[in-house]
């Protein structure tokens, strides 16, 4: 496991350029703040523009250490014996995709790398198109030997939201008599022995809307005892933290969660060192922008205290 070090970060040429651009400007604003001069909102906007654009253009990435909640999901997939059955539900749409698609990609990659049997489905009509992206970019490109129907299968979309979960909890085939290409359930070797959700070793729901991870926990995870994990947009993650660790065995929250997973997976799989890491790339702008916002909060407080002292003197 690699721990991020200052040497690595400073060694990145892109960071130096960004630091020069932004750091200098912030110091200048800080000095102005000490003299009690307000910062115009357009200056704040300009700094955000640079801090988001520069890391994207220079492709700056940072090393990430997985948080406990991310590590647990990784370990769960890693520790299951090869050939375990894992259900992955793509419950998201294009607006959520920037955050959730990288999770879907890296988790699918991990599942197939470990030799598990991956059963894909979706509770959202838009989820099928999102799975097709994973199918093209990850499964077909990086796992050419993975056989459809043996190593993975796509059951497609089924309307009915929580109603679908209520049925597949006890009878999967009733809801999905065929896969997405209308191949009958019984003709797919990967599905042999699967009668209900209880026959899976792990269920992973990707997407933070409704139905989503919470519904999987309430309607399937709790009643059957099958471990449930999830990957959701950052705004939704806080509402799901209380389910961990008793009702959920791991959670990826937002780009950060995805980036931590990508980083950890890549570090532990030398044959995947050249894999695409979209979340890690997106963490560049997010990190720099967060630091800039923090700096502006400091500047704002300096201004506040300087001005208050002036008023007291008056």
């Amino acid at each position, binding site marked *: 496991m690699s*721990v*991020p*070090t*200052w040497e690595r*970060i400073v060694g990145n040429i892109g960071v130096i350029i960004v630091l020069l651009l932004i750091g200098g400007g912030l110091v200048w604003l800080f000095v102005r703040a000490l003299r009690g001069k307000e*910062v115009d*909102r357009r200056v*704040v*906007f300009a*700094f*955000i*523009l640079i801090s*988001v654009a520069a890391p994207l253009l220079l492709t700056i990435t*940072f*090393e*990430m*250490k997985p*948080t*406990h*909640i991310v590590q647990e999901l990784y370990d769960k997939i890693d520790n299951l014996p090869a050939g375990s059955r894992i259900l992955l539900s793509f419950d998201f749409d*294009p607006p959520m995709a920037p955050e959730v698609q990288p999770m879907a990609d890296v988790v699918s990659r991990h599942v197939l790398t470990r030799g598990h049997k991956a059963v894909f489905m979706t509770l959202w009509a838009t989820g099928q198109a999102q799975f097709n992206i994973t199918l093209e970019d990850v499964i077909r490109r990086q796992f050419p030997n993975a056989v459809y129907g043996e190593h993975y299968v796509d059951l497609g979309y089924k309307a009915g939201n929580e109603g679908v979960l209520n049925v597949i909890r006890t009878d999967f085939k009733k809801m999905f008599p065929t896969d997405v290409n209308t191949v009958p359930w019984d003709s797919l070797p990967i599905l042999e022995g699967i009668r209900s959700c209880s026959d899976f070793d792990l269920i992973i729901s990707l997407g933070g809307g409704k139905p989503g991870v919470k519904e999987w926990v309430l309607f399937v995870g709790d009643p059957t005892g099958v471990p449930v994990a999830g990957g959701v947009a950052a705004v939704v*993650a*806080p*509402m799901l*933290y*209380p389910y961990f660790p008793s009702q959920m065995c791991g959670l990826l929250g*937002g780009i*950060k969660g995805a980036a931590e997973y990508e980083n950890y997976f890549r570090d532990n799989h030398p044959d995947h060192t050249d894999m695409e890491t979209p979340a890690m790339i997106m*963490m560049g702008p*997010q*990190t720099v*922008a*967060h*630091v*800039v*916002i*923090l700096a*502006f*909060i400091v*500047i*704002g*407080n300096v201004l*506040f*205290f300087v001005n208050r002292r002036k008023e007291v003197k008056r």
Partner: protein
Amino acid sequence: MRREIPLGITIFVGFLAIVSFFSPPLEALGEDFTLFFDIIAVFAFFLGGGNLVRIHANKLIKKKPDWIYSIVALLGFFVMLAAGLFKIGNPGDISTSVTAPGSLFAMLYYNLNLPLGSTMYALLAFYVASASYRAFRAKNREATVLLLAAFVILLGSTPFGTVLTSWIPDSFDFLEIPNLAVWIMSSPNLAGQRAILIGIGLGVVSMSLRLILGIERTYLGEDRG
């Protein structure tokens, strides 16, 4: 009678919605009333669309300030309407989906509407920064607590948070900034959110009862005076 009939409908449908939740035979009826709303809302489109056209056409004809933008609004409205209504450029016959790949509607939606919407959404990054700069100031004790929490959350969302506290031994890893950030979000923050949610739930019950009982009728254009 102008007020009594809508009020009667509100009282009837409101009570039916509550009762149907507890009565299986009435459940379908409750769902039907929900569908009625959707049907009415669709017809109301003509009102909205008509109003849009009237206002912008008026602005254009009278050459009011910024009339040039009205051309863009009207053009966008009619082109999109025609593309959807007549299925211009659809690959198949009239029965194909309005968003079928290759159709003018899909082309305009994916190449114009979607990027424009994303652009507006992306403005949030700028506004979050300017709002944080203004709002997070240690004006009093509560604001200072808020400021500290914001600092931990923001740092926890970056690798810097990890780096700053990576020296902490594993047995005390709950003190690492990213873990502290998760704790703040999942414990104090969530407790507060739930309290607000319970309040909202009760507020909705009270408001709904006022509407159903006819105590609240301002929205019907109730004559007061």
